[in-house]
């Protein structure tokens, strides 16, 4: 028997969209690879499962403990590892979020099985999965297979679609109250950063670079991001200059992102930056220098003054969004 276990990450009682992407992807292979697709959730109070409509797994294992409202890696890992039980082959799916990146390798090590992180493509060929993952921050792609029967994979957020008309039916919950969970690594609190979305999860990102002239002009980027419902990003140059926090940095020593729309404003396009955003579906560049490398990557280019054009851009977006 081959089965998939999909880890559903819960934040503030909601299942993350990126977890739905992982679940929907695993369900694509039900019948043609997996006999069963199950999900696992760790929580204090169960999240809203209605968002799973169209992507209903065979069962959802709910692990409950008052401590599970925050991340407790050892306890999560232990329960996930036992879910493998007697299956011939178990493939664990995670989303490549901060939590997924931390937890998936622990599960792979506990099971001593192959691990493939940050996948952007999965192909089923001759009964084997071929996984594709960006390496060197996206400057190259590696095609690979896992040779162990059990496997652990993480999927890059925003890349795999959530199918809406997939598996339906009743949600089968199995709830386990976990007593005395291993709290040797314990998250004691969350500190929220001010501002909105994180670049690694946003489907629209507006990033600024040196071309903005100074941190005092960055509100123009924030206004546009706000109008578009997107996240604020930054080039390494402006992070190193102290204009913006590192968590906003896009590129090889920052975050690698794949939004549906990436707007680069006043960013010339250093190779490290281009690598980090090249998998965006649409790229817009606004830069005074018509020879800037960013234009080689951009679907739409504007060769004008960012400070002058950003407010107009924001206004136009507001107009069509009504």
């Amino acid at each position, binding site marked *: 028997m081959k089965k998939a276990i999909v880890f559903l990450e819960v934040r503030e009682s909601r299942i993350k969209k990126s977890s739905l992407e992982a679940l929907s992807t695993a369900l694509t292979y039900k019948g043609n690879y997996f006999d069963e697709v199950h999900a696992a959730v760790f929580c204090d109070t169960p999240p809203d499962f209605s968002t799973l409509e169209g992507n209903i797994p065979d069962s959802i294992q709910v692990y409950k403990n008052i401590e599970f409202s*925050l*991340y407790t890696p050892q306890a999560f890992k232990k329960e996930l590892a036992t879910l493998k039980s007697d299956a011939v082959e178990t493939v664990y799916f995670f989303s490549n*979020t*901060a939590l997924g*990146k*931390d937890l998936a*390798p*622990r599960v*792979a*090590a*506990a099971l001593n*099985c*192959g*691990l*493939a*992180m*940050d996948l952007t493509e999965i192909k089923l060929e001759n009964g084997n999965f071929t996984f594709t993952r960006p*390496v*060197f*921050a996206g*400057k*190259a*792609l590696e*095609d*690979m297979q*896992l*040779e*162990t029967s059990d496997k652990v994979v993480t999927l890059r957020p925003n890349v795999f679609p959530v199918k809406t008309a997939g598996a339906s039916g009743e949600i089968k919950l199995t709830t386990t109250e976990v007593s005395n969970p291993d709290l*040797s*690594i314990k*998250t004691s*609190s*969350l*500190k*929220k950063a001010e501002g909105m979305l*994180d670049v690694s*999860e946003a489907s*629209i990102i507006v990033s600024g670079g040196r071309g903005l002239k100074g941190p005092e002009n960055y509100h123009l980027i924030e206004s546009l991001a706000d109008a578009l419902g997107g996240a604020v990003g930054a080039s390494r140059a402006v992070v190193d200059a102290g204009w913006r926090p590192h968590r906003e940095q896009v590129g*090889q*020593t*920052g975050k*690698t992102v794949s939004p549906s729309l990436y707007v680069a404003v006043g960013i010339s396009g*250093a*190779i*490290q930056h281009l690598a980090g955003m*090249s998998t965006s579906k*649409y790229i817009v560049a606004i830069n005074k220098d018509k020879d800037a490398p960013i*234009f*080689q*990557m*951009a*679907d*739409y*280019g*504007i060769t004008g003054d960012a400070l002058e*054009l950003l407010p107009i*851009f924001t206004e*136009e*977006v507001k107009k*069509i969004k009504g």
Partner: protein
Amino acid sequence: MKIAVCVNHVPDTATKIKVGPDGKKIDTIGVTYIVNPYDEYAIEEGLKLKEKISGTVYVIGLGGDSHKESLKKALAMGADEGILLKTDQDFDSVTVAKLLAEEIKSLGCEVVFTGKQSIDFDNSATGQMISEFLGFNCVSNVVSLTIENGSLEAEREIEGGREVVKTTFPAVITAQKGINEPRYASLKGIMAAKKKVITEKSVAQSTSKTKSLGLRLPAPKNPGRILGSDAEAIKELVKLLREEAKVI
């Protein structure tokens, strides 16, 4: 306390990647290698801990002869001893973690620092797996670390904020940018490093848990349209994003 720092030797971030003749590795001709940037934070964190509670800092690398350059840099920054687990084989990340864990165990280290990810294969997995093989606690992606009376409080970066995590030794910490400012190697440090030892140890061949089918470059993007430089161009842009790209 014995402190281990795992260090990788990687192509400089400015490297334009080309695929080598075998189709599985990068073409290394003309490529400059550096200490993995996140491992520099790990080295600094190891040195800071040594300064605080005294101890020995071991820097451990795994790879070919060239990895000694990165180990030397760590020694010049102030690490005490280098160990190179010498191999020309490309191991999968699980096996790398296992080999590093075995070495850390034989050295008797109680704390391990490494970068949150290596900027070549971008797994962000090694530290967590080392901890699993050693039975150590582990906090990954750490941007702030406080050690008091044998307990650790780490802040790790997550989407939209930070998690404050409490744990105890023995522990593995993986470093994210922001945790510290790595020191530069002083001239004195560079001279002192010449007298420090890098012990080479051979690594047995092992079967890989992964099979690489090859590296390829992303399909080149066709440069798009330049729409202009004025307000009219912006109007056109918004229209295209709405009607053609359908992303807003």
